[in-house]
């Protein structure tokens, strides 16, 4: 017995090793045992929970990259949406113009407003149609709601339009009920109010009468709506009339350009005074 204890104390590490190995082998043999299976399952569940937490922690560190990726996707999608929306709005405006029954759109040129310069005294529009599209100087620019302005200069693909709300713009107008004629101009300030001058105080102009372009105009065809009378102020000889414009210039996106009004004989007779002497 003593010898055994001496042997044990001398080789206890080896004995320990053998015992541990035996237990390990026993565990390997009994790995399908209920208790061991439960223990292993619990361990794996615990391990899975910890790994899940670590994964979510790792995900936090990579959020910057994820955000950058999402920003790139967002930018791409936003560009797509903007393109589609712009195309949809353009198409809607084009259809609106084509479906308008108040005038025949054939012979009219459709253009898009690509730039505008608006201030309280000087306004100008730029449209994406030039002489290649048949645009000429002094053509009338309009929308179904009414008169927009006239073309003042033309390049190959673009044209400059002087709108009604420009202090240099003047057009001869007539009221549709009382046939009162006057000269419409804009004196700056509010972009939806213009003034009509030279309407005699003896005329029967009423409030809310519609003003349209008259035949006297050198560039515009007659009958294009311009606005309606909202204020009549009598002066010594003439009325000062405020007209609420038919066109909303703040939301103008597409316009029509009417064919050029060609009346050379009329122009000639109004400018050449010698013609009067030829007739008896």
């Amino acid at each position: 017995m003593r010898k055994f204890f001496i042997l044990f104390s001398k080789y206890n590490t080896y004995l320990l090793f053998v015992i541990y190995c035996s237990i390990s082998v026993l565990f390997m043999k009994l790995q399908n045992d209920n208790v061991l299976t439960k223990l292993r399952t619990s361990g794996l569940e615990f391990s899975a929970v910890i790994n899940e937490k670590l994964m979510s922690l790792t995900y936090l560190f990579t959020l910057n990259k994820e955000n950058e990726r999402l920003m790139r996707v967002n930018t791409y999608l936003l560009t797509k949406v903007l393109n589609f929306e712009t195309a949809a709005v353009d198409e809607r405006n084009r259809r609106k113009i084509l479906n308008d029954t108040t005038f025949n759109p054939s012979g009219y040129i459709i253009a898009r407003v690509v730039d505008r310069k608006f201030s309280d005294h000087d306004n100008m529009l730029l449209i994406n149609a030039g002489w290649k599209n048949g645009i000429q100087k002094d053509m009338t620019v309009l929308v179904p709601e009414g008169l927009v302005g006239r073309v003042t200069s033309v390049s190959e693909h673009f044209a400059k339009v002087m709108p009604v709300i420009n202090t240099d713009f003047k057009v001869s107008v007539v009221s549709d009920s009382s046939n009162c004629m006057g000269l419409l101009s804009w004196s700056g300030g509010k972009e939806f109010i213009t003034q009509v001058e030279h309407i005699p105080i003896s005329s029967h102009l009423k409030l809310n009468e519609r003003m349209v372009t008259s035949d006297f105009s050198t560039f515009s065809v007659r009958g294009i709506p311009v606005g309606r009378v909202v204020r009549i102020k009598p002066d010594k000889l003439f009325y000062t009339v405020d007209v609420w414009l038919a066109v909303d210039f703040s939301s103008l996106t597409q316009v029509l350009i009417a064919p050029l009004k060609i009346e050379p004989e009329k122009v000639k007779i109004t400018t050449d005074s010698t013609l009067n002497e030829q007739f008896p």
Partner: protein
Amino acid sequence: MTKAFSFSLIILCIASALFQEFGLTRLTFFNVSPDAVTVFLGFLAVSAGQRASTSFGFAVGILTGILSGNMGLNMLSRTVEGFIAGYFHIPEDSHATAKQKTRRFFSAVVIAGFCGNAVIAAGYNPLGLSPAYRVVVLGLLESFITLILAVILHWLFLKKSLVD
């Protein structure tokens, strides 16, 4: 072995097992990952002896076995690692230099790691590789990677523990 030292070893044992299972297993190179438990057992063997390293190897094997779902094989391989590493023990009265202790520590890590990997390779082959390839190629590769980890840990934490 004092009480405080034993307590520190238990904490280190649990920490190395958790670090191995939840941290280093994600760091794989050519299907092998460094082994923090082997480094721990190597350090323990050099400083505390063969009996302690074998016992701690068995204990840490239970822990890693529970966490990895392969108890018996893990217990066996860790016990073997602890036992093999124990041969590199340096007794306290040996007057060995820090350099000698460090060299023994690295040797313990490499040899124990290789033997432990051989035991695992013999009993568990999830990738269906040939046993020779698993034992020799992957065993040597894992030992080398574990040695790098041992060098890093020695440089960071264990330098003071292995002084003259």
